[in-house]
């Protein structure tokens, strides 16, 4: 029978401040880069605009496409490569009153600039500026509502400081994932939003497994202090944590490599999220419970 971990006794709680300093500075660096670039890199879902993805029979460079479209209000033009597929070119434009006309002009200019090279439209996204704003608001609402509900549920099942630790862990995961998205130049789209909300689900799932063990050990081992119980609980659940995170990481990695450009942003955010979600349960959520409990309860009292 293979075992990754039989019985471990790693001191997780001890170096919590050092590790928090590390991820904290990564988050701060991410935020600084984001601010320097003028805010988050919203995709057209949230910003509004027109995105056409085209594929040429014989691939051409994005520079040539940009040149061919000179005279139009073209934003970004970039090449999208995916495994085992010919390159595609994504063209971003400001959305005009008549997006149909704009699309027609793009196609006309492209077929005029590359005669004999058949161009095929793979994907079109048009989001009006008003709709973009609405989607952004909806995203904010769903994140807030989800966090509020989680806070209520965990408070009910455990205790308020656990809920606080869990939700702050989620905030940590979100910020860290956004930092990585910024470093690797992924834009913030609806898909990425879905990924972040899912990884929040995973992260809270992970946190709850550890919390559950702490809850159990608190009842069983009354002579130990909270820090010791936490360390013990994290060690006891470590095997499960690693196995689950590995399998989920594996499935998401498959999506990232073979899922095609449609799911690229989504799976990248998930890849980062699985790691940070696992990390935050141990190094963010649990320490917060510990700190809160040490400050707010009389010594010797439970929790």
């Amino acid at each position, binding site marked *: 029978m293979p075992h990754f971990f039989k019985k471990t006794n790693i001191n997780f709680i001890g170096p919590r401040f050092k590790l928090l300093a590390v991820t904290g500075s990564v988050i701060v660096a991410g935020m600084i880069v984001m601010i320097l670039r003028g805010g988050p890199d919203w995709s057209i879902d949230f910003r509004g605009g027109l995105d056409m*993805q085209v594929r040429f029979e014989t691939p051409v460079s994005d520079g040539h496409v940009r040149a061919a479209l000179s005279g139009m209000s073209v934003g970004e033009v970039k090449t999208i490569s995916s495994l085992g597929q010919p390159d595609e070119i994504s063209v971003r434009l400001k959305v005009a009153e*008549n997006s149909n006309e704009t699309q027609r002009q793009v196609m006309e200019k492209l077929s005029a600039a590359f005669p004999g090279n058949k161009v095929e439209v793979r994907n079109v996204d048009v989001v009006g500026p008003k709709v973009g704003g609405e989607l952004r608001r909806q995203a904010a609402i769903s994140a807030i509502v989800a966090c509020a509900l989680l806070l209520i549920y965990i408070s009910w099942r455990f205790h308020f400081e656990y809920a606080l630790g869990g939700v702050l862990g989620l905030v940590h995961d979100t910020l860290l994932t956004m930092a990585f998205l910024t470093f690797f130049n992924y834009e913030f789209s609806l898909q990425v939003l879905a990924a972040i*909300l899912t990884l929040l689900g995973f992260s809270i799932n992970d946190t709850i*497994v550890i919390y559950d063990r702490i809850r159990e050990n608190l009842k069983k081992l009354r002579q130990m202090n909270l820090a010791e119980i936490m360390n013990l609980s994290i060690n006891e659940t470590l095997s499960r944590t690693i196995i689950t995170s590995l399998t989920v990481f594996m499935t998401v990695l*498959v999506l990232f490599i*073979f*899922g095609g450009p*449609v799911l690229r942003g989504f*799976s990248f955010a998930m890849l980062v999220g699985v790691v940070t979600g696992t990390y935050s349960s141990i190094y963010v959520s649990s320490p917060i419970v510990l700190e809160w409990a040490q400050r707010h309860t009389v010594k010797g009292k439970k929790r």
Partner: protein
Amino acid sequence: MKSVRARLIFLLIVLAVGAYYLYPTLKYDRLSREESHLLIELASLSNLPLNRLAADIYRDDVDLRAEIDSTDISPVQKEEALQKLDYLRGDFLRNMKYYRPRAIKLGLDLQGGMYLVLEVDVLKMLDNQAKGKDEVFDRILSRLRTAEQTRSIDLFDALREQAASERATLSRYWGEPGQSDDAVLSDLRKSAEDAVDRSLEILRNRIDQFGVSEPSITKLGSQRIALELPGVKDPARARELVGRTALLEFKLVVEPDRARDILTKLDEGVAARLRGESADSTRKDSSKLAADTVKAKTDTAQVAAADTSRRDTAATEAEKLFSEQMADTTTDTTGRAHPFLSLLVGGTQNILVSAENRSRVIRLISARENQRMIPSDVQFLWSHKAMPAGEDRKEVWVLYLVKKQADLTGTTLEDAQSTIGSGYDPEQAGKPVVNIKFTRDGARTFARVTGANVGKRLGIVLDDKVYMAPSIRDKISGGAAVITGLDDMPEARDISIVLRAGALPAPVHVVEERTVGPSLGRDSVQAGEFCLILAFAAVVLFMLWYYRLSGAIADFAMILNMFLLLGVLAMFQFTLTMPGIAGMILTMGMAVDANVLIFERIREELRLGKTVRAAIETGFARATVVIFDANITTAITGVVLLIYGTGSIKGFALTLTVGVTVNVFTAIFVTRAVYDLFTERRQLKTLSI
């Protein structure tokens, strides 16, 4: 349910229900594979092109039988081809029709297609309905327009506020005199709602005639209509078809003498205004005007900037081009003396504008100061497209000066049919045309109008674009007319469709579009299937290796999880999207986690020296709590996404939520039942875990 047997029977029932709902999906998948096979065979037998067959095979109005019969292939081949055709259109089609609606639907991102959200321009409708418009009205309307374009507002509340701030009563513009603001607003609200509902019906009509299989047209909020058009081959045409208002009007063209007067006056007015200002401020002024301009005409924005500096050269170029035609017009050679006329190229009949000058002319005639110089009963309209003219066939647009009041509109239309024109008229013969037929009332009006205006020209105007303006030679009493000047047969067909379906009560704008080309859809399905299988295989093998026999039980639970998840999707007719597949893959991760939690716990209990049965007992008991907590928290985010998410996110949230629910069942109920089945009778000394 304590007894193992009862639990197993319950499990079998669940499996049977799942299989019942999933069967049509499998069957439909097989049928569509068979279909493509049969079509390829039929194509090679009958020598007909495959894509034609694919498009027309089930159409009742196309007689493929006769077509195959008339081809010169050997009788044996013909016999076989006809047999295949009959099978496809008979038994096979019946099967398809039965299973298709029962199979899991694929989202637009997987099968290719178009998702459009149209917003009905209620403001424009209010504008159209208003009477006695003045400057206050213009101010209110333009403020509403900016407010509406930047954020989501309640138009009618905003209208009340704006009117109040201008101290204007709404009954000045709408409804009966003396009616209270509330009454007017509630009437307007009702008529807006009515307009959206009617637009939806008209759009449904158009789409049905366009020939999209299983379209979905739904109202979204109060002013929007969402259209889902699966498998659209030509998105540009579909967009054009649903986007156009289809307002057909017949308007008399202003007679040449009067037109010349109006043009000259306008020219003089513009010149006088320009003389007072320096060249520099002119440029500033005109760019400001451009910003004011109602952006109804589309291609102004990009050309405008470059155009201003180039206009002089462009004008002289155009003059050279059309020098013969210009002979009888009053055009001067310098653009400064005649800022307006120098942009036009007069023919004997038509006012022509070169493509380069068009945007400048648009700006001039739509500028507010110049609008005042145009008599209120006439308006400028453009031809629906540019046409080559002059010696080197340079593109020119025709500018029409027509009466504002339409003599006849599309509401009096009885029928419109696209066809290839016949007769001797070179504009019609052999070219795609649309034959229109008026109702009896319409025919009477048409006869009266044509009778009273012999010798004049009547413009046929669709959505403010002039398609043609023939001279009336005689009174036309037959109640029929022909629209010519169309590009190709599809355009003629689309115009006849929109004319038959009727005009939208207000213009619509595309506020959101998601189009996935068929090839991308196919790639996504392949990528999705591949990912699912690969991830699945990796997880299954890993579990087998790490947990041995127990791993096999976990794998069984996971397969069951996928099976039931798909079953639920089929049962409730949910749609599977690419993010949905991603949700399934994540569900797989959750399913594994539940089993890992159970197994790790059992291993722990075994290490503590408990017996196999006791270890299983406590392992499950302890793991159940945490599985519930973990899955409920995930379900919370899933449900929140379902409620607040849009489009693709919803597909993801759906599979995740359903998957998590199924997961609790498979992990806690099924895995336990299988364990109990193994340990019930035998006293196990060791457990393969």
